[in-house]
């Protein structure tokens, strides 16, 4: 059996950003009432133990049988009577903090994966990665913040639940709140938040490269995209200062995609910046502000999409 599915949040910084002292909730249980079995070997009625800890330290893998316990800290779990044995020549394990648990990293990874699975079951549209040049989020992550945060919230909720039910409920409600519908994922599903690949969010204008002395900018854009999806490249062709009241010498080019690549087919060719909405391709126009355009490397990217993933219901009145 194998899987290609993954978790969206990591098991380190993402989880700690939700619950800073998460390590406290490592789901270990205290093992007490150790009795002497034979010299230096102690036992206790423990219940199932997959990993034994002494004073917070993992004691390695279990030995295969009781006879194999010959060195300090070696241990063996006998599943028949549910008894754990440990070897200790220094003192009784009653003097130490003995705990049973599962490996903390393994536990966090498992629950993180389960929480990601829960998100995939809850969100009724694809969650796609943002890998690729210029595609990652502002925080350089491969998935949307709302997905990463929700994954971390649900994971932390499950991890803290055995020891703190109240905190677990609070964390879960920040991601999924059946009562109010105000959890992050509730609002995503309701269309109040949108993922990066959803049409309504794709009309984004991003500065790709701006010279340090450039003071002008593209300050507005409008239009109805005539393409399912594309990236429009807008770059300065001729540098200069665009000032109201003086004829502008600043010019720009724009490029759209074609069947061979993105940003490759020229639409605007040395168009003079005049401060009005100017066509850049695919039915879209942009408006430059007055200012200095200092480099032919000044470049912007306008992402456009003619698709709508969450169509709004509108009304229209007809006469005949």
């Amino acid at each position: 059996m194998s899987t290609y599915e993954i978790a969206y949040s990591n098991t380190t910084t993402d989880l700690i950003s939700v619950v800073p002292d998460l390590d406290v909730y490592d789901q270990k249980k205290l093992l007490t009432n150790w009795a002497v079995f034979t010299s230096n070997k102690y036992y206790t009625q423990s219940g199932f133990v997959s990993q034994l800890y002494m004073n917070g330290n993992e004691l390695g893998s279990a030995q295969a049988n009781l006879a194999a316990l010959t060195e300090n800290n070696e241990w063996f779990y006998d599943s028949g009577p549910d008894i754990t044995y440990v070897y200790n020549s220094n003192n009784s394990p009653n003097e130490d903090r003995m705990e049973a648990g599962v490996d903390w990293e393994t536990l966090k990874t498992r629950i993180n994966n389960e929480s990601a699975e829960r998100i995939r079951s809850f969100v009724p549209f694809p969650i796609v990665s943002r890998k690729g040049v210029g595609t990652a989020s502002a925080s350089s992550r491969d998935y949307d913040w709302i997905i990463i945060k929700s994954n971390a919230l649900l994971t932390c909720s499950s991890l803290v639940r055995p020891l703190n039910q109240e905190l677990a409920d609070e964390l879960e409600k920040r991601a999924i709140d059946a009562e109010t519908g105000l959890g992050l994922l509730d609002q995503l599903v309701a269309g109040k938040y949108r993922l990066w690949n959803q049409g309504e969010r794709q009309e984004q204008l991003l500065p790709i490269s701006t010279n340090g002395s450039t003071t002008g900018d593209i300050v507005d854009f409008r239009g109805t995209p005539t393409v399912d999806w594309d990236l429009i490249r807008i770059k300065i062709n001729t540098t200069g200062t665009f000032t109201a009241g003086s004829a502008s010498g600043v010019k720009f080019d724009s490029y759209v995609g074609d069947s061979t690549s993105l940003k490759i087919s020229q639409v605007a060719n040395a168009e003079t910046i005049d401060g009005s909405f100017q066509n850049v391709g695919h039915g879209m126009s942009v408006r430059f502000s007055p200012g200095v355009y200092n480099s032919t490397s000044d470049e912007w990217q306008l992402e456009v999409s003619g698709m709508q993933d969450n169509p709004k219901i509108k009304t229209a009145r007809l006469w005949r």
Partner: protein
Amino acid sequence: MAISYINIIKTNVLDSIEKLLEDEFGGIPVGYEAKGNECFILQPEEDTLVELLSSGQVRSYSVLIIYEMNKAGNMELNKDHMTNRAERVKRLIYNNSAYSPSSAYKFHDGSIDSITYEIDEDDPELKRANIAFTCIVTEAI
């Protein structure tokens, strides 16, 4: 300009108890809030004047050392572990009733005055031994 003073209850009493407990119970967290399946929580209780001197003062300090364990099962199952921990603290303080590590005076007449055992009313898995500690600190001013 602020006067010169020393936070005696912290530097002489709380820090000393913390050090003693950490050295003796290496694996059990010692702090000011519950942590993990078993821990010691230090709770400063009282600071009382014993004697005012011409160049200092003698004061009595009380600190509640709460040993807390989080484990399922009734007291019958857990009493040995609880009482072992409390008795070990009692002996630890007896052995260090006058505490001056590396000849740096911290306190004297340290003692455990009482120990009470309880089960949390809201969460029966939480069991506590409330260990009342007092000591005397002479501060030369």
